[in-house]
């Protein structure tokens, strides 16, 4: 490991990290700035965090975002898992190609198109835009990600595990809950976290589908920035960065642990 870290590697690593993280680092540093000017350092202070907590509008937006993210990622997990199972396990059924194309479409569809089409749908149905329309829109695009994660895990899973459970007397539904689900659970957690973070930082689709009283945090930040940046925004962003980092780190730890276990099993398999 150490030997690999020659001068040029070190430089590349430093530059890479700098390119990726200096903007975020600056944002975090200036959230502790005493001055109201975002670019001039005037000493350490946590007053913008206090201001953030006292800003009811901002907190409302954060709460709204959290509600949307939790509900949409949970529903997306269920629907996406079902879609993943259909794609990985049902074999060839009439319309499979169409179905798989339609499941994956939201992955490549420009967000503006998704947002606009959702908006047109809600208008056509004359649904009042608000919390539920944002949530439904988020479910629509994030379930595709869950479906991909679940399907790829199911495809690498040994089919004979499910056959063994059925052979031992477990009907298909029992087999799914007793064997399939526990084995693919790391993929489910990863899928949920992915859907959660996607929902958390979505601006475009939320802008199209939200209504009065259902402003999400990214929308709030975006509209405030247009009026002028205050370090309060930096403070909110820092908190968001923290939450997303924790989510991403948790997801990768869960995945890594599952991989280590699978590797150990594979090693034990060949003597």
């Amino acid at each position: 490991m150490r030997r690999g870290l020659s001068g040029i590697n070190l430089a590349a690593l430093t530059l890479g990290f700098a390119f990726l993280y200096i903007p975020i680092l600056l944002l975090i540093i200036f959230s502790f700035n005493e001055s109201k000017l975002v670019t001039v350092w005037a000493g350490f202070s946590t007053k913008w965090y206090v201001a953030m907590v006292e800003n009811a509008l901002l907190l409302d937006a954060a709460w709204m975002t959290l509600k949307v993210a939790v509900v949409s990622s949970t529903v997306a997990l269920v629907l996406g898992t079902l879609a993943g199972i259909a794609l990985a396990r049902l074999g060839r059924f009439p319309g499979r190609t169409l179905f798989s194309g339609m499941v994956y479409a939201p992955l490549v569809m420009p967000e503006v198109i998704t947002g606009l089409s959702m908006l047109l749908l809600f208008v056509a149905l004359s649904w009042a835009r608000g919390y539920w329309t944002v949530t439904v829109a988020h479910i629509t695009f994030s379930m595709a990600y869950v479906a991909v994660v679940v399907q790829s895990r199911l495809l690498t899973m040994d089919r004979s595990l499910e056959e063994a459970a059925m052979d031992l007397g477990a009907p298909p539904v029992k087999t799914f809950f007793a064997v399939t689900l526990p084995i693919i659970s790391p993929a489910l957690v990863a899928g949920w976290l992915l859907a959660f973070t996607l929902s958390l930082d979505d601006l475009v689709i939320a802008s199209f589908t939200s209504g009065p009283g259902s402003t999400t945090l990214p929308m709030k930040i975006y509209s405030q920035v247009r009026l002028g940046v205050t370090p309060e925004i930096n403070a909110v962003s820092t908190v968001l960065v923290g939450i997303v980092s924790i989510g991403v780190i948790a997801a990768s730890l869960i995945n890594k642990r599952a991989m280590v276990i699978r590797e150990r099993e594979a090693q034990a398999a060949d003597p």
Partner: protein
Amino acid sequence: MRANPGGEAAFLRIEGVSKRFGSVTAVDDVSLDIARGEFFALLGPSGCGKTTLLRMLAGFETPSAGALLLEGVDLAALPPYRRPVNMMFQSYALFPHMSVTGNVAFGLRQDRVPRAEITARVEEVLALVELSGLARRKPHQLSGGQRQRVALARSLVKRPKLLLLDEPLAALDKKLREQTQFELMAIQQRVGITFVIVTHDQDEAMTVADRIAVMDRGRIAQVDTPSAIYEAPRSRYVAEFIGDVNIFEGRARAVNGGDVMVEQADAPAGLAAPARADGPAAGDAVMLAVRPEKIEIAPGPPPPGTANAMAGEVTEIGYLGSVSTYRVRLDSGKTVVSTQTNRLRHGGGAIDRGARVHLSWPVEASILLRS
């Protein structure tokens, strides 16, 4: 041989079963009767349909035609989880998130067996496979041989009427595999369950099974005891698949008493073989098969006029310790293999490479095959 396939009404009857996948016919009109308590092997190269047949018995594939009857009950009507049949998978398919006990108890839990009985039966079956000390381990904490035993225990614990074993020993190394073959036979005799094993390994099938069905491209080539399969193969395919064999092509000349005489260029006095009931008529093209260990090799010629005698030159000698294999080139250029047991140390009167030798074998050692 314990089983007597003719005596008892068939325990498992496979009746004209076929399985087609699209345009491919994996199993083609197979009919078999398997007796209660029998250790039956389905043997064949990969892709011969043996695993598909096993999976139809387990319920993972549906026959395209034909019927599977277990004690007279049609299995087709039952889904895999209702069949009184258990399977041991080639990959073992142990549930990675459960301990050894959890894996073995899984089947009993599905049947809502009382807790105390589950504990007792799991302990009993783990003792049978000599895994009692490892009950709380997870599959990834076990060696390959131990996993194989867990898989066996899990498929035995429900006391199925029929146990299916899909290449159960393929993942073990040679030494362990041979040892496990004998353990498998001992366990089968103790539990008295009918075993159907699928294997591509002829030695394994010969060792463990009471009867073997040799399969070729979806069809049954021959069903017989291991010794009958070896000593009286009914086709060239079976003769060549099981063990080594020398094949001579010729023309049937005359049926002489109980023997058929065959004209063949390398044998001056012709070849002789016991006639078969469905034996060929004079003038038919036939094949004659002889196992290498039945061919005597000698420096001097047998009396003139002896059938089954040929001469040639030793081109290679393979020394295998217990036996030596001689490759002899006949005058026609055809190579014949003869195996001789090395009874004496450093063999007295040894035959060297390049030596002119005479080959002969008794009439009964010849197997007549149709071309």
